[in-house]
């Protein structure tokens, strides 16, 4: 399971990663559209640098969650979590419902709103272009200060804790992405609070997909149960009506919904 560790204290905000991402994924020039958000991500920008006061720069990209919400909600399975850690997207399967964009706790996926044939766009960790050739993603390769590095997720977590332990006054004692929403492949260590990378509420450690799984597991039982209940009810009521001839129904209409 691979991952990326970004150390915001090392980032100088040069945006080489953004340019490298554009080049390797053959993304066109972006212009500010009505539908863009102010974090810099868009259908043509799969990673961006968010500038913060005090000369702080934070790279924003897909977090490649270990249990991704987008993968769990896609009705056609266009998004998949690969063994390498990357969450990848198959545009040929996608039908454009944009449920992934609604579900992502980090608000990462973006849409080709201006295209007649639009696709969902997000970082795919250079899966086809580099990861499958045993190369690291373009962004981590070009980073001049090694602020964002690629490696085994476990190794990266160890490295992150090592850096924090070595320089406790330099960092906040937290590795973002180690536990939140069940863990992410893209990790951050920082000296500023990174909660602006989400919608602002604390995410908690519960993986997001588990929130629907209870309801989804109930589906077959609900179907069989409801069908059985209805069949049984109609049989019983039919019998009762037969028994008391003449079959004039005098019950109040309110009874019909009592079972729900």
């Amino acid at each position: 399971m691979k991952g990326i560790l970004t150390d915001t204290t090392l980032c100088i905000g040069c945006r080489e990663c953004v340019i490298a991402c554009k080049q390797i994924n053959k993304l066109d020039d972006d212009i500010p559209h009505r539908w863009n958000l102010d974090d810099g991500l868009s259908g043509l920008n799969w990673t961006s640098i968010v500038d913060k006061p005090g000369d702080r720069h934070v790279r924003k990209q897909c977090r490649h969650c270990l249990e991704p919400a987008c993968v769990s909600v896609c009705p056609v399975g266009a998004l998949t979590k690969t063994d390498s850690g990357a969450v990848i997207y198959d545009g040929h399967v996608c039908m454009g419902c944009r449920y992934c964009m609604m579900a992502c706790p980090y608000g990462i996926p973006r849409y080709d709103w201006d295209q007649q044939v639009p696709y969902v766009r997000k970082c795919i960790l250079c899966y086809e272009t580099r990861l499958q050739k045993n190369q690291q993603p373009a962004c981590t390769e070009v980073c001049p200060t090694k602020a964002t590095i690629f490696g085994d997720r476990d190794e990266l977590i160890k490295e992150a804790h090592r850096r924090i332990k070595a320089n406790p006054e330099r960092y906040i004692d937290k590795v973002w992405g180690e536990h939140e929403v069940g863990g992410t492949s893209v990790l951050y260590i920082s000296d500023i609070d990174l909660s602006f990378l989400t919608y602002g509420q604390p995410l908690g450690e519960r993986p997001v997909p588990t929130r629907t799984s209870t309801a989804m597991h109930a589906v077959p039982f609900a179907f069989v149960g409801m069908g059985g209940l209805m069949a049984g009810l109609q049989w019983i009521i039919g019998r009762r009506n037969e028994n008391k001839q003449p079959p004039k129904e005098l019950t109040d209409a309110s009874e019909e919904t009592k079972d729900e």
Partner: protein
Amino acid sequence: MNRVRNFKLILWMITGFAAAAGAARYIFGLGPATNLTDATPWGLWIGFDVMSGVALAAGGFVITASVYIFKLDKFHEITRPAVLTAFLGYIAVAVGLLFDLGLPWNIWHMIIYWNPHSPLFEVGWCVMLYLAVLALEFIPVPLEEFPRLGAIRNFLVKFRLPLVIIGIALSTLHQSSLGSLFLIMPYRVHPLWYTSILPILFFISAIGLGLMMVTFESNFTAWLYKRKPETALLGQLGNAARWVFILYLVVRFGDLAARGQLGLLNGSEWQVKLFWFELLIMAIIPIIMLSIPKVRNSLGGQWTYAIMGVTGVVLNRIDVGGLTHIDRTGSGVYLPMWTEIVISAGVVSLAALVFLFMVERFKIWEKRPADPQAEPQTLPEFTPVFQTWLGDPVIAARTRYSLAFVLATAIGFALVTHDVAKSKGVDPSPVQRSRGSDTLWVDGNTDGFGVAFKHAYHMKILGETSIDTVEGVETVSVDVNTSCALCHHMNLPRDQNSGCYACHADMYSKTDAMKHEWHSSPQGANLACRDCHAKGGPKSADNAKKCDVCHSDLFPSGATIKVEQYEALSYTDAMHTLCVDCHRLKADDVSRPDLAQCAICHSEQRSFVDENTLAGRYQNLVGKSLILP
């Protein structure tokens, strides 16, 4: 029949508008034709067309359950309209979805690519299956008119009970799963609405809405066709709805208490007001009205509580589906564009038109609306003296409706293309002339963040330039042919070294460097068409003279700049290309690798520099070569 006629006329007009807006959506794409953004990817089409559409069609399974499961035969006469409404409602949902999906031609992928973890997958499958069930339930009605197909009809009628049971089970699943859709978004949905029992709440309210919708639809069509409304029967439905809504209120507040969120109701946020408003019109007021038998059994009362209940549940769906996300995503308010509203209304209108056609053509009600061809004497326009019907002939109706549709589409097209086609969602950000005379404060955004560009210094290090100080004044002698041409385009009137902003006129968008208007206008170059374009044939860019035919020294030898098209790069791109290219070259020359890095220019970019600071920093230059804004 004027009432029906005018109503249909309005429906046709809305459909016509929607046809134009729908064409715009497919021609220009979702971005220009809607107000959806990356933060609100689901808008009115999901909130109203899909979420509310499915809920509004709940009447079908509620009524079939009452009649075929609970054997309440008195409701039999409203079964057919209820099933028809449900059937058309689900078709409308599917049609609305075709507009909302980015790749609607892939909608069938749900059949072959499975992801059973997804609530949307389940909703999709249930809707597909239930649509099939509804079709099978409804088909026997039109088949009555075709006695030759009686065998098929009898076959279908035989399977009615299993169909009804499957339909109820499927409805249970997808009505509740519409709530499950939002379980994955605890960070978007406001805690007053977000709860893990959303599916149950959705299912209960769907039953209530189904009853309200049947009441509304029955009374509305009764008004439309001047039928006798089934007031007593609908009153009994209302009584049932009362208990459903009471159950809903209990569950909803019980859930709030169980989650310990009752304290939220003390807040003064707008969401709290929305919460109370929603509950008031959806449940509380209808419950009060329904508890009074006199109100429940009166036409006016039924109208009021039905409309309130329907609006309330629809509002609830819209709240959960997007309205309460607004503050949480911090992305600004989403208001549907008029095309979205018109398309939603158009889909509903089309469904209503099919409904009216069905009730006029087939036996949906016990008593069909009068047909002028079959029984003219029942109609008000029938004249006993001449023994003829003097109302509108069919051909007049046909002519009128189609004309309304065509006119509405034409006007819609004019509106659509004017609003939508022109703006691709891009705000132009014009570039102004850089400030200063020698040390340029290149500040394209005009927001105070800029890059200091020392012109004299660049002249010195580029090419054969010498800067001498003669009598205290810097004088510059330059070999124009090589050095200025490196950066500037030449041969612009009265501004030999052209400013960047003249052609790269927009910060982010490509612009037309040729400026056709200027070349052809009397105030500009005052050229006739034939001065540039070949005689005859279309006058396009292809057969026009190239720039360098007239501007012979536009591309000087040895220039870094190359003009190959009439399109000028955006200002940022042009500056970055020009500066960064040169810096990269120089970085090798002078072996200073940092020269090509961003910070060499953008060191002050993120700190706002006001005039005083600027004057202080370039103190020695102020008044001589730096002119402050």
